[in-house]
C-alpha cells in the first residue's frame, strides 16, 4: 500500500495542481449542468422569423411557430436576423411576406414563404417540414372554404368566411379530430427499454455525456502527467535498481490516480440525477470509473512509450481527441454512417450513459 499512499500524497501535496483540478472540474461541470438544465429548450431547431404582414392569418402562423415545441424561433428585423444568421446563432430565416394571406385566398400554394439559408444548405429542409405542418391548417381552410363558397346554391344561407372559420374551429376543438400516429419505440438490443419515447433532448444529453467523457479523459491525461515527468527524470530507471515488485507498485499507483480523480467522476455522475434517478447515477458513476481506469492504463503506457513530458502531453491530447471524436461521431452514426466507431470507449460510455436516461 506504500506506493498507493505515496502517489496519492504526491498528487495531493501539489497544491497548485489540486486547486487547478478542483477549480476546473467545478467550472466545467457547472457549464455542463447549465447545458443539461436547458436541454429541452436548446435541442429545438433554431430559426429566424420575419413576419412582414399584420394580416390575421400571417399573425396566427407567427404565433403558432412561436409556440412550437420543435422550433426555437427568434423574431426581429431583416438586419437583425441576417446578423444572427451570419454569426451562426440561427440556421435559416423564414419570411412571411405581406401577401401571404392574399396568396392563400387566391388558392396559390407555391412560394408562400421565403426561406433564406446559407448557400448549399440542406439542413433547413427539416425546418421547412415542421413549418409546413403549421401552415397546413390555413392552406386546407382556404381550399375547403373556396369549395364551399362555390357550391351550387340549394336555398340554404351560405356562411360568411368568419362564420365558416368559427365552424371549422369548433370542429377542430373536438378531441375526436386530432390525428396522431400511434408511435412505439422498440429497442431491439435492450427490449426492457422499449416503449419509452425518445426526444431530441435525448440527443442533446448524449452530447453532454460525450463532453463529460472528454473531460474525464483530459483529467486522466493530466493526472498521469507525474509518471511522464518522473520517467523523463529517470526516476523509473532508478526505481528498477531498487528491486521489488514494480508491477504491483505501479498498479497501486494507478489506483491512486483513479482515487484522486474519483471526486470529479462522482460529481459528473450527479449532473443528470434528475433524469437518471439515483440508481442510474450509480451506474453512470461506475461507467465513469471504468472509463477512467481504462484510460489511466492507456496514459501510463503512453508515458512509457514517449518518455518526454512534452511529447506525452501532445500524444495524450491527441489520443483524448481521437477517442472523444469517435464518441461524438458514433452518437450520430445514423446520420454520418460510421457505426464502426461505436466500439470505442467514449462511444460505449455515451451509449450506456444514454441508456440510464431513458
Amino acid at each position, binding site marked *: 500500500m506504500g506506493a498507493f499512499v505515496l502517489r496519492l500524497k504526491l498528487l495531493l501535496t501539489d497544491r*497548485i*495542481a489540486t486547486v*487547478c483540478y478542483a477549480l476546473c472540474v467545478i467550472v*466545467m461541470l457547472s*457549464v455542463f449542468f*447549465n447545458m443539461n438544465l*436547458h436541454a429541452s429548450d*436548446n435541442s429545438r431547431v433554431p430559426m429566424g422569423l420575419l413576419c412582414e404582414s399584420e394580416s390575421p392569418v400571417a399573425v396566427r402562423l407567427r404565433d403558432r411557430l412561436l409556440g412550437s415545441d420543435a422550433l426555437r424561433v427568434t423574431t426581429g428585423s431583416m438586419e437583425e436576423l441576417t446578423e444572427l*444568421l451570419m*454569426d451562426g446563432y440561427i440556421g435559416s430565416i423564414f419570411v412571411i411576406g405581406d401577401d401571404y394571406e392574399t396568396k392563400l385566398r387566391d388558392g396559390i400554394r*407555391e*412560394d*408562400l*414563404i421565403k426561406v*433564406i*439559408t*446559407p*448557400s448549399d*444548405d*440542406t439542413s433547413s429542409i427539416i425546418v*421547412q417540414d*415542421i413549418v*409546413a*405542418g403549421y401552415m*397546413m*391548417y390555413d*392552406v*386546407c381552410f382556404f*381550399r*375547403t372554404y373556396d369549395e*364551399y363558397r362555390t357550391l351550387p346554391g*340549394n336555398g340554404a344561407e351560405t356562411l360568411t368566411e368568419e362564420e365558416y372559420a368559427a*365552424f*371549422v374551429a369548433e*370542429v377542430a376543438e373536438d378531441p375526436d*379530430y386530432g390525428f396522431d*400516429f400511434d*408511435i*412505439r419505440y422498440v*429497442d*431491439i*438490443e435492450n427490449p426492457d427499454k422499449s416503449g*419509452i419515447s*425518445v*426526444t431530441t433532448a*435525448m440527443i442533446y444529453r448524449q452530447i453532454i455525456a460525450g*463532453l463529460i467523457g472528454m*473531460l474525464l479523459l*483530459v483529467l486522466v*491525461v*493530466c493526472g498521469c502527467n507525474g509518471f511522464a515527468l518522473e520517467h523523463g527524470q529517470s526516476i523509473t530507471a532508478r526505481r528498477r535498481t531498487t528491486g521489488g515488485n514494480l508491477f504491483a507498485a505501479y498498479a497501486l499507483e494507478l489506483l491512486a490516480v483513479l482515487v484522486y480523480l474519483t471526486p470529479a467522476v462522482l460529481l459528473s455522475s450527479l449532473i443528470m440525477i434528475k433524469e437518471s434517478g439515483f440508481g442510474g447515477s450509480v451506474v453512470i458513476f461506475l461507467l465513469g470509473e471504468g472509463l477512467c481506469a481504462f484510460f489511466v492504463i492507456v496514459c501510463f503506457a503512453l508515458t512509457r512509450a514517449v*518518455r518526454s513530458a512534452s*511529447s506525452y502531453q*501532445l500524444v495524450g491530447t*491527441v489520443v483524448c481527441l481521437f477517442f472523444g*471524436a469517435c464518441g461524438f461521431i458514433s452518437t*450520430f452514426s*445514423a446520420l*454520418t454512417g460510421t457505426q464502426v466507431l461505436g466500439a470505442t470507449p467514449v462511444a460505449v460510455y455515451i451509449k450506456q450513459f*444514454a441508456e440510464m436516461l431513458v
Partner: protein
Amino acid sequence: MIGKDIKLFISDTKTLLVLLVLALLGIAGVFLASGITPPTVITVGIVDHEQSNYSEMLKTYFAENEDFNAFVNIYEGTEEEVNARFEKGELDFYFIIPENFTSEMIGMKNTPIKAVINSDDKAKAAVYGALLESYSRYITSVEVNIESLTFRMREEDYDRQLIRDKNVEISWDLVMTALGKDAFFEREAFDRMASLPLTDHYIYSVLILLVLYSGMLTGYAVLLERKSGVRSRLVSCGISPARTIISKVLVYGTLMSAAFLAVMTVMKQFGKIEFSFGIGLYLTALIFGAGIVFSVLALLIRSKNGYCFFSNMAILLMTVLGGGIIPVMYLPNALSGFAQFMPSYRFITFILQK
C-alpha cells in the same frame, strides 16, 4: 535568444518526431473524416391491412416519386414479414395501416396508424419521432377541414352523392398538397454565408483545438525553462524575462505556423479543406495569440501539473463555448454569449462568411 530557442526546438527530436507523426495522423484523419458521407437511404416497412384504392394510390405516388426514392427504401409485406425484418435491424421503422383506415377516417373515426420506430439509435429515433409528429399535424389539418366541409354540406342538405364526390376530390387534392409541401417555400441562398457540413465543422474545430494546444506547448516550454533554472541564469546574464518569453513565442509560433500551413496546403491540394491566404493569416495570428496567452499562464502557474490541468481545461472550455462541439445556435443563451470571444467560433464564422 532566437537562435538558442530554434536549436532547442530542433534538438528535441522526440517531440519533433511526435509532431511529425501527429501531423501525418491529422492529414489521415481529415481524409477519413471527409470521406464520411451520411447514409442517404432509410428503410421503411409498410404493413397495409387496408389495401384500398387510397392506400394503393399513395404507395404508387411514393414509388414513382424520384425525390422520395432517393432517400427512402420502402419494403411492403405482411405484419410477420415486416416485423421479422425489423427485429433483425433491417428496418428503421414501419407503419401498420389498419383495416378500413380511410373509410373510418371519412366516417369520422380516428383509427391511428401504428408506427414502430427502432430506438437502438436514440438520435435517429428522435428525428423520426419529431417528423411523424409534424406529419400528424398535416393529417389533422386535412381531416378537420374536410370533415367541416362535409358537416356543413350535410347541415345544408346537399345531395349525398355530391358530398361524397366533393369529399373524395378535396381529400385527394389536399393529400397531394401536403405531399408537395416543399412548393410552399421559395428558397433563397444567402450569398454572403456558406453552410458547413457536420464533418467539416468538426475538422475545423479539431484544427483550432490543435492550434490552442500548440500555444499550450509554447507555454509549457516557458514553464520548463523557468523550472529548470535556465531563465534565472539568463536573467543573471542580463537578458530580461520578457525577451526570453518573446523569443519562445516567436520561435514556437513561427515553426508551428509553418507546420500548420504546410499541412493545410497539402490537404487543400487534395480538395479536402478550404484554405486561402486569409485563412492562413488568421490561423497564424491565432497560433501566436495562443502562444502569448499560454506563456502568460505559464508565468502565473508555477506547478507543471497545475499548468497542465488548467490549460487543458481552458482549452476544453474554449472549445465548448466556441461551439466546437455543440454548434453555438444550440448552446443555452447564458453560454452562447461567450462564443464571440472564443477562437473556434471566430475561426468558423471567418471561414463561413464570404
